[in-house]
């Protein structure tokens, strides 16, 4: 199968991107400055991320769509206000996660942002569940650009006036340069920022404009170190079909009103796990010293019994040390529990720690 390219591919090339294949797309892993500088620039200034490989699924419908979607997602969609976003999951009957996603209520229905590697399968699953009652469009004509970091609000507002009035996890349509953009205040870095849905033919010019105002292109490498410092899950690593939201320590994302009544796919399993506890749970892990424990590193207790596995591990540039997330048996999941990580045949000490590794406050009270 031919590798797919986003509408910013030429711009990446002219900015000296190193490319990797990711979910069938040719994507920039880094630019000439490298992952650490790109990471730090995002934390201190404003980074631009091409996330056009992700799925933008528009589903059109009225209250009957809301009712149908409540049978699928563990959310109180009836009480979700228009232009508000929620983090959620598409699950199977065993509460195994097909994908994690952001769903936003829009005037015409819902917009769901899906992972690149899952979007086609998600579309199939949702089509089967919803039948042909609602118009669904996995929109390939739109690019998705994220801008993240403390200077992003000022930079973006100078191009799209009014985005500074958005609260975190809300969005709206904006007019700019004779076109309609859907902008949400959200992101995947632990910083304040926005994601902009824009038609493909306008994306390059829009990003050039952001660069002119002082933002810089950031690759997938720094996107990974940024999200890991922020304690955020990456599908295919922390989340997959064999993990449930309770095991992934994401029960906060399940609406309280839905927990008592159930009625969504996977609700039985989730209610059982909420009552009896899950046997394994996602935790933050801080290796002692400088050692990096990568994905699939085995975790042991002090009696040489394996108690879990790392799902993501890297060097955190803002933390200035190694960081990881993984799953451990529940009794080892308390903060400050001492564990051992087997790296290259030797066991190294580490501690279970609270997430995130790096924290800033999101913008909540602008209006």
């Amino acid at each position, binding site marked *: 199968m031919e590798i797919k390219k986003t509408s910013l591919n030429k711009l990446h090339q002219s900015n000296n991107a190193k490319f990797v294949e990711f979910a069938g797309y040719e994507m920039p*892993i*880094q630019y000439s400055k*490298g*992952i*650490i500088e790109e990471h730090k620039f995002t934390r201190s200034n404003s980074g631009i991320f091409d996330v056009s490989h992700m799925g933008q699924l528009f589903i059109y419908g009225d209250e009957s769509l809301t009712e149908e979607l409540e049978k699928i997602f563990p959310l109180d969609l009836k009480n979700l206000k228009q232009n508000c976003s929620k983090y959620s999951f598409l699950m199977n009957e065993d509460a195994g996660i097909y994908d994690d996603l952001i769903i936003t209520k829009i005037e015409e229905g819902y917009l769901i942002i899906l992972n690149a590697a899952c979007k086609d399968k998600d579309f199939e699953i949702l089509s089967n569940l919803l039948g042909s009652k609602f118009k669904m469009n996995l929109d390939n004509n739109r690019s998705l650009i994220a801008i993240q970091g403390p200077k992003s609000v000022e930079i973006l507002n100078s191009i799209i006036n009014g985005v500074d009035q958005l609260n975190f996890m809300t969005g709206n349509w904006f007019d700019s340069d004779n076109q309609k953009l859907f902008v949400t205040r959200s992101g995947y870095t632990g910083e304040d920022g926005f994601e902009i849905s824009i038609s493909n033919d306008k994306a390059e010019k829009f990003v050039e404009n952001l660069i002119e105002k002082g933002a810089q292109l950031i690759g997938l*490498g720094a996107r990974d*170190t940024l999200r890991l410092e922020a304690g955020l899950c990456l599908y295919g690593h922390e989340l997959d079909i064999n993990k449930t939201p309770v095991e992934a320590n994401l029960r906060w994302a399940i609406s309280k009103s839905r927990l008592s009544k159930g009625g969504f796919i996977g609700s039985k399993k989730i209610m059982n796990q909420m009552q009896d506890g899950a046997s394994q749970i996602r935790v933050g892990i801080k290796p002692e010293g*400088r*050692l*990096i424990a*990568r994905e699939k590193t085995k975790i042991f207790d002090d009696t040489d019994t394996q108690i879990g596995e790392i799902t993501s591990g*890297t*060097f955190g*540039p803002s933390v200035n040390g*190694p960081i990881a997330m993984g799953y451990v048996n529940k009794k080892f999941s308390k903060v400050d529990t001492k564990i051992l990580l087997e790296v*290259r045949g030797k066991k190294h000490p580490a501690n279970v720690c609270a997430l995130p590794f790096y924290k800033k406050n999101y913008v909540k009270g602008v209006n």
Partner: protein
Amino acid sequence: MSEVKFSKEHEWITLEGDVATIGITKHATEMLGDIVFAELPEKGSNVEKDGTAGVVESTKAASDVYTPVSGEVVDTNQAIVDDPSKINEDPEGSAWFFKLKMKDQSELDSLMNKEEYDKFAKESAS
């Protein structure tokens, strides 16, 4: 000090008396990206030509460091363990990895000179 020689695994080596100094090339650091972890062989241990003699990790991945010649490890560079970013800054100078007391100096004969290595690196990168 002898002429700098290079291995296909992207290590450089110089010889002073019977002690060789070994590090990784600038080309290697450019391929690896930001280096954030270095592990070196233990002083007093013996390493064999083409065997592993350490690890470097970048933000992206871990890579083994090989030794281009055999010998006893007589010194290691703690400065790059304490601050691995030094390897990106000066890979072919102050950020050497370890020093070996060589057993068989003829092991150097099969290694590349600068011109040969530059050509090799250019070809292997493309």
